[in-house]
């Protein structure tokens, strides 16, 4: 503790000098008062460092409380290999080993849920530190292949984050993938102009670094909670 004290000045006459002219001892006025103050400051600083360190240890030991629904089990995530990206490359989840992949089933003519979810996912990636952001991927699968080819889906998600990828494929392959991921979708009756809406499961599915589906988020999860969950998956 003594090393935190300032060196005494050579002219320091000692503790008695602390008594003021009136003989009344004034707090924190003379050199020894300053010394006590410095010691106290040192104690506080050391204690503060200790508290911060202890909190860091405690928070690193405490399990992260996920906002999304956590899935148990370690079976590998269902394959998406029957689907392809815009360049024709099949979707190979092994490309993301050791990383997080967010899988979303949606469509590009979707005005509300899909853009909200993609914007939130992009914002979440922006909240992650660089290392975690680098290891976070997103694949959006179209549930509307008549209107969305893979290139279109890729362009759609790329608008929200250039790293996001889009996939599509034959209806049968999409049906199999959707069903494997527990995703429901159905096309609504077209309106007079031929446009139609699609009901679809709007959840984001998170494949963890081990390659299994670990967390499912509802579409209103929000960027902060999503980022915290992704960081926990990657830690």
């Amino acid at each position, binding site marked *: 503790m003594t090393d935190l004290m300032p060196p005494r000045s050579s002219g320091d006459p000692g503790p008695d000098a602390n008594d003021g002219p009136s003989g009344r001892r004034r707090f924190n006025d003379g050199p020894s008062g300053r010394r006590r103050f410095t010691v106290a400051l040192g104690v506080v600083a050391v204690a503060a460092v200790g508290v911060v360190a202890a909190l860091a240890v405690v928070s690193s030991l405490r399990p992260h409380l996920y906002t999304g629904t956590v899935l148990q089990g370690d079976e590998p995530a269902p394959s998406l290999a029957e689907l392809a990206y815009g360049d024709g490359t099949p979707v190979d989840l092994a490309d993301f080993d050791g990383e997080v992949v967010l899988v979303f089933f949606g469509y*590009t*003519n979707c005005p509300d*849920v899909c853009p909200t979810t993609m914007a939130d996912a992009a914002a979440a990636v922006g909240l992650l530190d660089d290392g975690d952001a680098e290891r976070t991927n997103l694949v959006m699968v179209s549930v509307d292949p008549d209107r969305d080819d893979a290139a279109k889906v890729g*362009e*759609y998600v*790329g608008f929200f984050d250039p790293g996001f990828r889009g996939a599509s494929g034959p209806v049968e392959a999409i049906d199999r993938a959707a069903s494997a991921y527990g995703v429901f979708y159905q096309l609504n009756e077209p309106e007079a102009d031929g446009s139609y809406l699609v009901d679809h499961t*709007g959840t984001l599915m998170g494949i963890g670094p081990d390659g299994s589906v670990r967390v499912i988020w*509802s579409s*209103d999860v929000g960027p902060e909670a999503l980022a915290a969950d992704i960081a926990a998956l990657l830690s």
Partner: protein
Amino acid sequence: MTRRDPAAIAGFAVALGLAGGLTLAGCGEATGAAPAGLPTSATGVRVAGAWIRPTPPITNVAAFYLRVENGGSDADRVVAASSPRCAEIEIHQTTTVDGVASMSLASDEQLSVEPGHDLVFEPNGLHVMCLGLDEPVVEGEAVPLTVQLEIAGSLTVDAVAENR
């Protein structure tokens, strides 16, 4: 439904007391929630906080979000909306059941706004769907939107394009 905060309610009460009735200026100053100059109907209804999410170039749909604030003394109802940027507009309610999101035309009940209440259009809920968007919505631009109410009539605002 968003309720006004206590200060706003107090301010509203003061405005009522002083003026002996609802004044539009009093209402606007009391809530302080939106910049001055927002169009307010003669019946005390206004549209505030309108925004639209920027859109990827390959889509021609978008959604407007906003708040209809009924500072008047009569219930009102949103009946339609329009924008020069949209070939067509539908007012939709997204409903999520067991994770499945579906959209349907909002019902009369869902579009009613009682006096002193706000009708909130927000992501994953009530939204004004723009179909046949003429060109992509670019962040920062202002997109005109006219909201038509049964009693208050038409109110036109600029929806700010921003990612939230």
